[in-house]
């Protein structure tokens, strides 16, 4: 037997020390706990993550919906805000416009008869109320000037079919259109002469005015007559009989300044100086800073038109 084997034999003769049973149990239970507990940390985070992503997705969806709703609600608000701004100077401008327009009409009644010459079919209803005094428009105007409250009501002219007295249909249409343009012009001035933006806004407003013109507009100037003639009808206006398209004038304000001036020049050439004057006045109101060259002035200004 070698020395190493003899030593080993003696070593094996030592009492076989073993770890205590409690120590065995502690270690084995720790090992089992570790195996069982290994999924546990994964389960807890997975439990969180199981709710984390749906909750995050739901939060994103709610946020997106809220923003969308908010934006959709904001858009009418901005329009509503732009409405009063556009209509604020209305009483004075309306009066000035009416003063400018009405001298051309000696009386509302003749104007009514003049309407067919512009291609309009007269509405028989206003003619069926001959008791309407000739001075009614003036009275209505005085009422409106004394109480400008109705003006905001008509500010965003409802697309309802109005009684549409044809005597002042053209003037009323012009007035409405001028009001809209003036309102837009006021807004444009407030926005630091944003010419392109002004044209866009005017285009929007004018397009709205055009839509209203088509069914038979006359939102303001016609209203007093309608109220006076049939107060109950004011609340429930009867739709106007089918009128032929009132040949709406082109909304040059939505065009470029050069196009607008060219249109004015065309009106001059056609001898429609009244319209040309109005368009020129509107043009200068909208494009205050625009410098019209001499050659163009010769074509658009009545005094220089040859």
């Amino acid at each position, binding site marked *: 037997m070698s020395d190493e084997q*003899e030593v080993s034999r003696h070593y094996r003769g030592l009492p076989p*020390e073993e770890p205590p049973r409690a*120590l065995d149990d502690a270690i084995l239970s720790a090992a089992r706990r570790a195996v069982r507990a290994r999924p546990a940390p994964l389960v807890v985070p997975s439990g969180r993550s199981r709710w984390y992503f749906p909750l995050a997705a739901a939060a994103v969806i709610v946020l997106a919906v809220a923003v969308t709703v908010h934006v959709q609600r904001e858009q009418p608000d901005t329009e509503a805000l732009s409405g009063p701004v556009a209509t604020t100077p209305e009483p004075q401008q309306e009066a000035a416009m009416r003063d400018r327009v009405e001298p051309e009409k000696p009386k509302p009644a003749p104007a009514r008869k003049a309407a067919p010459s512009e291609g309009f079919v007269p509405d028989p209803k206003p003619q069926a109320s001959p008791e309407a005094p000739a001075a009614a428009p003036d009275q209505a105007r005085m009422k409106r000037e004394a109480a400008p409250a109705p003006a905001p009501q008509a500010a965003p002219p409802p697309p309802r079919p109005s009684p549409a007295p044809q005597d002042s249909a053209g003037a009323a249409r012009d007035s409405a259109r001028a009001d809209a343009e003036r309102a837009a012009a006021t807004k444009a001035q407030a926005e630091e002469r944003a010419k392109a933006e002004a044209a866009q806004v005017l285009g929007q407003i004018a397009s709205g005015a055009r839509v209203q013109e088509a069914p038979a507009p006359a939102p303001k100037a016609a209203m007093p007559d309608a109220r006076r003639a049939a107060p109950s009808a004011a609340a429930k206006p009867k739709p106007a009989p089918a009128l032929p398209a009132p040949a709406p004038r082109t909304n040059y304000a939505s065009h470029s300044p050069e196009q607008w001036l060219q249109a004015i020049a065309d009106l001059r050439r056609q001898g429609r100086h009244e319209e040309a004057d109005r368009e020129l006045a509107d043009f200068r109101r909208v494009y205050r800073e625009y410098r019209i060259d001499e050659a163009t002035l010769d074509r658009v200004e009545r005094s220089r038109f040859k």
Partner: protein
Amino acid sequence: MLAYGGGDAGAFETLYRRHRGALYRFVLRALRHRATAEELFQEVWLRVIEARGRYAPQARFTTWLYTIAHNLLVDHWRKKGLSVVPLDEDEMVAAPDNPARQAEAREALARFMHALEALPAAQREAFLLHEEAGLTVAEIAAVTGANEEAAKSRLRYAMAKLKAAVDE
């Protein structure tokens, strides 16, 4: 160990049953203090449990297991201010002053046990790794971090002293 790392608790129990006695005796006889040995023995196995996920079979499990035990022994000895490898390997470690331990040694282990306890720590560890874990010289060197010549020398010295004790 790989099976245990995969979640098989029974695999650990098999490993434990296979190595528990030898490792316990290795630790106990290296430390010569039962309470400390039990504490360190448990710590070894807890390290094994903790390392189950990153265990890579680069060597025998036994080598890896006793490497953990060796490192914990080194930590323990360093805390006690002791050196693992005495400068003079032939220096005999004084017998324990504890009379009770000497009596226990006399009664239970006779002279062999006394000689084993009297071995320098490095020689005793090399001998215990050889006898309890069945490691080769190369494996002893790998576990203890020494070169093979040093491991072989420690083992040879330990054998010689124990043989001398047996022959007395």
